[in-house]
């Protein structure tokens, strides 16, 4: 027995409320972040991730309040992403009780920021979030590019190469989202997940597309992810985290039950 694979419910937060975008439009309300976080903690979530989905456009201090309130009651690791652009943003979130921050657009704009952040706070709390979209045509060798600003802005950067570079710069973990799959409930892009996971030494969290429990298992077994992240499958009570873990355990994946 050894290290367990992790299940991470993700709470997309907009103005202090949990929401889930389907392909980043058509948002449904799924509740109060503190109550949702407590519920997931009781269900056996291994970590919880909060993504401030509007922070790229507007600065919002409400996220700090949310993190403080959750961290006072929920004693499992918390990650915060969305609009993390400066050393001060990171310090504020860590002081509020976050264990890790996820850096996305700011890493693309200024890769040195990742290096600076890792040096200052340690790689263990620096997650680089990568939003990748498949750009190869059918029949071609698979290739993905990274996109920023909620998947709207192409960068021309190869996703696998970018992941390697970010680890060289000090990222302690990669949060990998398939923009093609996000919100579609058709499962992770397993080829993307596996390509990145095999290319880096740090843990990779698969994200984007979970529609059923088997998708989580596939992310670990076929995608070789170290952790799997999902939102809507848990938010609307379709499945509990516990059910997901039991399903994974029944297929010989080591989990914390």
């Amino acid at each position, binding site marked *: 027995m*050894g290290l*367990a694979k992790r299940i991470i419910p993700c709470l997309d937060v907009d103005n202090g409320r949990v929401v889930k975008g389907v392909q980043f439009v058509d948002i449904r309300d799924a509740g109060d972040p503190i109550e949702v976080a407590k519920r997931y903690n009781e269900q056996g979530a291994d970590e919880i991730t909060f993504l401030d989905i509007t922070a790229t456009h507007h600065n919002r201090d409400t996220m700090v309040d949310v993190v403080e309130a959750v*961290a006072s009651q929920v004693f499992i690791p918390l990650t915060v992403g969305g609009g993390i652009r400066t050393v001060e943003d990171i310090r504020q979130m860590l002081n509020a009780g976050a264990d890790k921050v996820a850096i996305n657009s700011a890493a693309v704009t200024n890769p040195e920021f990742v290096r600076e952040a890792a*040096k200052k*706070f340690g790689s*263990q*709390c620096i997650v680089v979030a990568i939003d990748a979209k498949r750009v190869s045509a059918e029949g071609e060798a698979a290739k993905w590019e990274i996109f920023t600003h909620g998947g709207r802005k192409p960068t021309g950067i190869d996703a696998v190469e970018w992941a390697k570079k970010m680890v060289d710069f000090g990222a302690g973990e990669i949060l990998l989202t398939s923009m093609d799959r996000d919100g579609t409930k058709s499962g992770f892009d397993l080829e993307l997940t596996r390509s990145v996971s095999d290319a880096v030494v740090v843990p990779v969290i698969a994200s984007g597309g979970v529609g059923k429990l088997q998708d989580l298992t596939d992310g670990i077994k076929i995608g*070789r992810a170290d952790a799997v992240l999902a939102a809507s499958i848990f938010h609307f009570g379709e499945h509990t985290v516990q059910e997901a873990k039991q399903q994974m355990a029944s297929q010989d994946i080591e989990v914390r039950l």
Partner: protein
Amino acid sequence: MHRVVVIDYGMGNLRSVSKALETVGGNITVEVTADPAKILAASHVVFPGQGAIGACMSALNQLDLAGVIQTVAAEKPFLGICIGMQLLLTRSDENEGVNGFDIFSGNVRHFDLPVANNGRHLKVPHMGWNEVHQMNSHPLWQNIEQDSRFYFVHSYFAEPENNAVIAATTAYPDSFTSAIAKDNLFAVQFHPEKSHHAGLQLLTNFINWDGQS
């Protein structure tokens, strides 16, 4: 009433440690501080630490806390967490070599791309929930099931010279020391403040501990 102090030297998320102690605490006060007088007056001392060990040691030296830590580590119930455990050893390989407090003889080493049974490399940092195998019946293990999972996040691990101080081991995939203990000292590589029920139980046990092992 117990006065628990969490040593604040600017490294890492101390809010979670103090909130977790307050949650399990009952009739105690919890203070996060760098004030030597308060640390010396505490009944229980928690020594956390995150990030790079070189930066941690520099911060301790800048705040002139090294002497205070050695004093309280010699006499009070003392709990080291993560880098707060690693700093109790003789030396760490991290940051081209950093000397610790040498309270436990031994070194802190990096995980060298561990290889799993299936031949694939395991990831570093060792991040997530792993089993902690208790090697003794220490008061801090009270009401914690053998092989309970705790949350880890680290790339370096302690290798004490004296096996008698090993309080727990964990497999990744080889066995490494995940907790050490002697006299009034207990130190863990994992994060009890982030380890849900098992972690909160360990913190409860620490608060109730009189420092006799």
